[in-house]
């Protein structure tokens, strides 16, 4: 600002001719300024631009101007004696009121009545009805220029000021009764004077006191007060009651004519301005001057205030200023769901999730004046979880602060008395520390007792400080912000914010930070890594981070968002500015200028849709598009811009749009469907072009057929080598009688005769003859040359001629199947990497953003996504290809005269995928790998799946499995044999190849049965080998269905139990008879193996026998009991033995002793007894056994890492994927 107004909060400043009149629009951010040169300007003070100009007043200043409260009207009065009423929507004057006989000083609409009040140098005040467009009263009495006249805001009063040194108050109630009474039409006469000459508007009081002419007088908005300003440089305050009015006080200070004076609409202030180039603010109650705003060169002429907002406008010699007396920003900071604010100078905390009712925790101790609160900032110490620490910073007294330290749990009883200090700025830096920017520019670190603990000199000239994270501080130095580490005493990083940062907002988790200057927003990481910045033309007010890492901010007019990837947009517009304090789960909490906390539902659909798209979370994308009712070109455009036209197809229904979209990303089929719906020539043509570009000749053909583009069709057949269809084209051309087409087709086919015929038919005999001769078509030559009696054809044939014969197709499509896959369409890429598999593209700080998510949806996608994203663009990049390049048609003529074998069948033989390769593409089970001869891979797979550490037993099994597929067929004599693998039944026909599996579940079952028989017949050694080999063969088996898979996994368990069983048997047999205890122990263990019932019975029997013989009667009794009580198959088979067991039980119970101490708890439930397969002894009940990853045999922990003794394949305790017997 040109002037040196101290601390003027300027919102808008304009430069123009002298401003004599001003009027705020009651609702919009507009102000009218009437100028000394006769122009009326309409400004938008929010964006600072001139909206309109009205220039119909002729000659001289327009001194008065006023908006109507509700109608799109304003009134102006000028030195041309005219009162003009304008419609600003129509942008013109709608009528003019004539009557005044001299300059008009002020004009004013009544808030309720259809009245206009005007004051004029003709010493009268007039009241006009703008509906009837007539003057309804002339108020006479002043005997000099009437400088101003105003309606009382509530009562039927008018106040006027005149150079006759008086202020008069007029009573207009009579006029009101007469003219605006319900049902009575407006007066018809030009004035309200009745026949007796009495007026409806009468002077009520004449206020005398000023020594010079009075320039301005105005009512108090609510109290019976009047303020006036005069050329005697005084401002006078007057009171009135029903009967009288008197002077109350005089405000001295101006040293030149007071131009204008008014009461502040909300605060107890008087505002006056003067030709002494000052605006003065006075306290109504104290009647003292509070503040003076000065301008260097310009005299002030007019002052006005907005009805509702706190804006004030003044007009001076060179323009106008719109400003505020005080900052209206509420002090607030959220922490979690708590909002800390200052309301009515009380510090409050409010739980936003519970309601909008605050709990007071202390009062602001600093005194304020009537004009400014002096409150600058409120900060909550987020680093201190155990206490409530709040710093309130005030601007008064050169900057000071209150520090509130209280318990974390604030109740209504809490009242914290603050500690105080002086500072240029303050902020918390750690759990129990805050920084104070001192007036000398140094930074003091204080503890919560408000004691200086450390002092440092910042590395830059610091004019403000902001919190910078734990033990860090942000130093603002003009447009720069430096992050300074207080412990390391060094600068972390710095950023520049155009205009200088005003507010800093940290995300809840402290991972990122937003800087807001007057017109810019800059987002950065916690170490000040720059992410994005935005420029706003209109002031940035506030912002908050939501739980997804999206920054929501407000400007004066809009609520906007900014995504982690830098996309930004508008959420909604604002009628009144608001200050966002929190955004959480689509709820916006904000405060307005009246410091009221509001809760609004925020329509986040758009940004959540974009966020979902950014995260490749396509289900959510769909959800937001459908539920959020997002549609239209903006969304389609966005999807296209982001490379996802495919997604748009999901919800676009308009066929034309679908067609365009599909074409745009090269999805031929989709485009085709849409084109069929549309069936428009232009669509077909475009589709054809795209199909041609992609090399999809079938579609191209179809399109050409649809559009009857015969020439293009012929050419297509030519370039695709489709001579059959080309022949058809020739026929069609004949039928159509299209000679040129016939000729072309013949040319392309190399049908010389046809060409000769056509030329002959068309009368081009010489040409025909020439062609015939050139091609040595004797038959035609003779006939034609007969007709050419005169001319000599031969002389026309150049010597070095080359015949025009089309090239022989090198490759041609079989039955039209072969397209040329020259281009990959987007669709294919999508197929390759499905939506869900793709992860978001890299973005600075995206990790940090993702960390912050509270409900963290699927954001843990695999890495490597960047590549795929790049792939997505390929569809466009590959455009064109070079498929035309090889067809150098210029060479056509140069080809040697090869005989045209149109129907020649060429076989292009290349080595196809072997059966092995084919089945491995479908399935890679160990059995498949072995059958394909990929033994090493099979072993590695088994290592991963089963923890295989001993391959030796597998060698014969692999060999068998491999040879089970080997076959050889003598092809023809002398020809090498055909080596086809044997395939599983039916798989050759289904084309879903699979090798012949040797170890089918059936084979496994058969082998197990065989082994079971061995057990029954007591051949434990053989049975052990047999079961083990079955166990070892199962990994090379393949289950065709879930049932087989279950059978096989059960078989693993069975084999394990039997291997254990037979190993116990073998071990016990090996022991010498003197080791009775061990023998008994092993025999006892036999009974806990999960065998078939009969085998279990036999095990019990043998254990019982052994124990009985070994005189361990108690143990023997337990086995006998199990034999008696259990169910072990057909009774006839076990009857005798059960009988015997009964006897043994009886005897043993009588004896009741165990001779040998064995490690077997017969009292425990059978299933609780676990045998270590390594040591063949019971595992203690408290011990946690480890298992073989394949067969599941249990071991004590000391066996970890060793080879499993049961299957002899797996590593005990290894962490593996587990066996796979069936394709997933």
């Amino acid at each position, binding site marked *: 600002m040109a002037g040196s107004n101290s601390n003027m909060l300027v919102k808008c400043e304009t430069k123009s001719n002298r401003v004599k009149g001003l009027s705020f629009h009651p609702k919009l951010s507009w102000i009218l300024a009437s100028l000394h040169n006769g122009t009326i300007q309409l400004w938008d003070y929010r964006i600072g631009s001139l909206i309109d100009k009205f220039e119909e007043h002729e000659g001289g200043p327009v001194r008065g101007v006023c908006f109507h409260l509700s109608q799109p009207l304003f009134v102006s009065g000028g030195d041309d004696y005219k009162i003009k009423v304008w419609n600003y929507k129509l942008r013109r004057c709608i009528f003019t009121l004539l009557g005044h006989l001299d300059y008009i000083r002020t004009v004013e609409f009544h808030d309720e009545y259809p009245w206009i009040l005007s004051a004029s140098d003709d010493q009268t005040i007039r009241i006009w009805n703008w509906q009837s467009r007539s003057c309804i009263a002339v108020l006479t009495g002043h005997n000099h220029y009437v400088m101003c006249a105003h309606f009382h805001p509530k009562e039927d009063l008018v106040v006027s000021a005149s150079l006759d040194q008086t202020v008069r108050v007029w009573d207009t109630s009579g006029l009101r009764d007469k003219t605006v009474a319900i049902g009575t039409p407006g007066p018809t006469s030009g004035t309200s004077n009745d026949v007796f000459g009495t007026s409806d508007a009468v002077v009520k009081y004449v206020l005398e006191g000023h020594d010079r002419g009075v320039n301005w007088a105005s009512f108090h908005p609510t109290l019976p007060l009047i303020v006036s300003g005069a050329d005697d440089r005084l401002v006078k305050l007057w009171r009135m009651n029903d009967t009288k009015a008197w002077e109350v006080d005089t405000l001295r200070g101006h040293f030149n004519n007071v131009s204008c004076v008014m009461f502040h609409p909300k605060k107890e202030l008087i505002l006056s301005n003067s030709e002494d180039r000052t605006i003065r603010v006075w306290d109504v109650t104290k009647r003292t001057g509070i503040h003076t705003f000065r301008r260097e060169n310009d005299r002030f002429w007019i002052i006005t205030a907005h009805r509702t907002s706190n804006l004030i406008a003044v007009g001076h010699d060179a323009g106008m200023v719109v400003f505020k007396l005080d900052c209206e920003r509420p002090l607030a900071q959220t922490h979690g769901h708590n909002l800390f604010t200052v309301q009515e100078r009380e510090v409050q905390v409010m739980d936003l999730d519970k309601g909008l009712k605050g709990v007071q925790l202390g009062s602001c101790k600093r005194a304020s004046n009537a004009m400014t609160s002096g409150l600058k900032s409120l900060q909550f110490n987020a680093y201190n979880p155990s206490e409530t620490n709040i710093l309130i910073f005030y601007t008064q007294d050169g900057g000071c602060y209150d520090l509130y330290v209280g318990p974390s749990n604030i109740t209504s009883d809490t009242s914290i008395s603050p500690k105080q200090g002086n500072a240029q700025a303050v902020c918390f830096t750690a759990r129990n520390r805050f920084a104070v920017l001192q007036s000398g520019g140094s930074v003091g670190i204080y503890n919560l007792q408000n004691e200086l603990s450390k002092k440092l000199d910042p590395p830059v000239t610091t004019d403000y400080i902001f919190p910078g994270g734990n033990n860090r501080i942000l130093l603002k130095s003009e447009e720069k912000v430096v992050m300074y580490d207080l412990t390391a005493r060094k600068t972390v990083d710095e950023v520049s914010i155009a205009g200088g940062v005003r507010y800093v907002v940290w995300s809840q988790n402290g991972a990122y930070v937003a800087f807001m200057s007057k017109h810019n927003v800059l987002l950065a990481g916690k170490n000040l890594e720059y992410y994005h910045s935005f420029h706003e033309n209109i002031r940035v007010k506030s912002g908050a981070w939501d739980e997804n890492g999206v920054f929501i901010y407000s400007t004066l007019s809009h609520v906007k968002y900014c995504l982690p990837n830098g996309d930004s947009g508008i959420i909604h517009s604002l009628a009144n500015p608001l200050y966002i304090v929190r955004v959480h789960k689509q709820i916006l909490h904000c405060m307005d200028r009246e410091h009221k906390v509001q809760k609004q539902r925020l329509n986040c659909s758009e940004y959540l849709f974009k966020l979902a798209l950014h995260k490749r979370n396509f289900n959510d994308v769909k959800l937001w598009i459908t539920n959020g009712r997002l549609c239209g070109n903006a969304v389609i455009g966005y999807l296209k811009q982001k490379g996802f036209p495919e997604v748009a197809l999901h919800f676009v229904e308009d066929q034309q749009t679908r067609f365009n979209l599909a074409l745009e990303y090269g999805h031929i089929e989709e485009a085709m469907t849409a084109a069929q719906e549309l069936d428009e020539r232009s669509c077909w043509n475009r589709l054809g072009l795209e199909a041609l570009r992609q090399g999809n000749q079938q579609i191209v053909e179809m399109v050409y057929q649809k559009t009857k583009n015969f020439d293009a069709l012929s050419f297509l057949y030519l370039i695709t080598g489709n001579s059959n269809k080309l022949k058809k084209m020739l026929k069609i051309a004949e039928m159509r009688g299209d000679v040129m087409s016939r000729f072309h087709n013949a040319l392309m086919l190399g049908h010389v005769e046809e060409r000769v015929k056509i030329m002959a038919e068309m009368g081009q005999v010489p040409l025909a003859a020439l062609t015939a001769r050139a091609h040595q078509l004797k038959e035609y030559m003779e006939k034609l040359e007969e007709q050419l009696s005169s001319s000599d054809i031969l002389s026309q044939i150049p010597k070095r001629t080359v015949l025009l014969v089309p090239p022989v197709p090198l490759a041609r499509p079989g039955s039209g199947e072969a397209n040329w896959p020259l281009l990959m369409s987007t669709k294919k890429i999508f197929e390759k990497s499905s939506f869900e598999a793709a992860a978001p593209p890299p973005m600075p700080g995206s990790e940090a953003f993702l960390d912050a998510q509270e409900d963290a949806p699927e954001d843990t996608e695999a890495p490597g996504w960047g590549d795929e994203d790049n792939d997505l663009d390929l569809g466009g990049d590959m455009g064109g290809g070079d498929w035309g390049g090889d067809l150098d048609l210029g060479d056509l003529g140069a080809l040697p005269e090869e005989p045209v074998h149109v129907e020649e069948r060429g076989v292009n033989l290349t080595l196809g995928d072997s059966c092995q390769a084919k089945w491995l593409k479908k399935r890679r089970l160990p059995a498949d790998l072995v059958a394909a*001869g990929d033994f090493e891979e099979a*072993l590695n797979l088994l290592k991963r799946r089963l923890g295989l550490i001993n391959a030796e037993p597998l*060698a014969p099994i692999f060999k068998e499995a491999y040879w*089970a597929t080997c076959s050889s067929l*003598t092809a023809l004599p002398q020809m090498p044999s055909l080596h086809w693998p044997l395939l599983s039944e039916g798989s050759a026909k289904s084309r879903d190849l699979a090798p012949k599996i*040797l170890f089918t579940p059936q084979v496994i079952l058969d082998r197990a049965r065989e082994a079971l028989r061995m057990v029954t017949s007591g051949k434990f050694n053989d049975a052990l080998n047999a079961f083990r080999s079955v166990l070892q063969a199962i990994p090379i088996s393949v289950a065709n269905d879930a049932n087989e898979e279950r059978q096989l996994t059960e078989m693993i368990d069975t084999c394990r139990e039997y291997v254990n069983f037979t190993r116990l048997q073998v071990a016990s047999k090996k022991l010498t008879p003197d080791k009775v205890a061990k023998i008994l122990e092993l025999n006892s263990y036999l009974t806990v193996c999960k065998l078939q019932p009969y085998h279990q019975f036999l095990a019990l029997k043998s254990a019982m026998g052994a124990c009985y013989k070994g005189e361990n009667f108690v143990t023997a009794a337990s086995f006998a009991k199990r034999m008696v009580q259990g169910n072990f198959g057909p009774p006839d088979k076990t009857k005798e033995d059960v009988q015997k067991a009964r006897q043994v039980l009886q005897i043993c119970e009588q004896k009741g002793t165990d001779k040998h101490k064995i490690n077997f708890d017969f009292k425990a439930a059978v299933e609780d007894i676990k045998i270590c397969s390594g040591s063949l002894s019971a595992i203690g009940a408290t011990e946690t056994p480890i298992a073989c990853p394949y067969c599941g045999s249990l071991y004590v922990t000391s066996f970890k890492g060793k080879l499993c003794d049961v299957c002899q394949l797996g590593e005990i305790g290894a962490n593996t994927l587990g066996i796979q017997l069936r394709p997933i």
Partner: protein
Amino acid sequence: MDEELQEVRDNFYVGNFNKALSLCESVKGSSELTQSELGATLARCCLSIPQIDRLKAMQNSEIPGQRAAALMAVITKSKSAQQVSSAKERLGALAKETQDMSCAMLNAMVLAMDGSWNEAAQMTKAHPVLEMQVLTIFLALSCNQVAMAEKLLKEASGNNDDSAAYRLAAAAVKLATGDPEEAYLTYCDLCSQFPAVEGDDSGSGSVLLQTGKALANMQRGMFSEAVEDLQRALSSNPNDPDSLVNMCCCMTHLGKKDEFQQYYSKLEQVAPTNPFVLKTQGMTTAFTRFQASLQV
């Protein structure tokens, strides 16, 4: 011309080489072309039986097919790589120079052995006769182009569907497309029509036919029957690698480990370069490497 040579061709293709040989010697060709084919077939019979001495004598024969067969003998039997490659070159040149069908056929086979499938297929194009078409079908089968083989078979049909060559091709295609029943029946027909021993009605065919029949049986899961077929084949040629391979496979399925070992050893001995043998031998390496990887 076709009729007089049909019997020779049929017997040659089904693998009754001795019969074909004697027929070649007895039939008198009516034209130069027939003569030349007869000579070539005779030479190819010598290749298959084999009668190397007779082939050696043919090195400078007037009949190009015989010279080609002699070169083929060098290519298949010689241990000198240089000899083999020069013989291949000469065979190629011979085929080009003479445009003789038998030369082209043999050359195509040699090209196929070397994996030059496309060149082999090109060789077959010059002579649009059924035998050549059959060769192309087998070439297609060799390089796993089953669909193409099926198509080629369709194209070849109608010329002489009763000929042994066509029926062999048809059987092979059936095997490749997973229709072993049809293949089995075709082989049975051929066996009874062209018995290995004149007048034998046991249905026992040549080694070639028996192997095919066995494979059809193997594909049908009838391994015991396949073993019988193979035993007959092996009785006439105990060293036939194809029969031995198939025998090993059958024994695996029948769970006869000893027999498997027996046939496998035989196979290792007679066909040390057979891919199955090489793969089996490679298995040891794979296991060793795996165990070594565990040590790391």
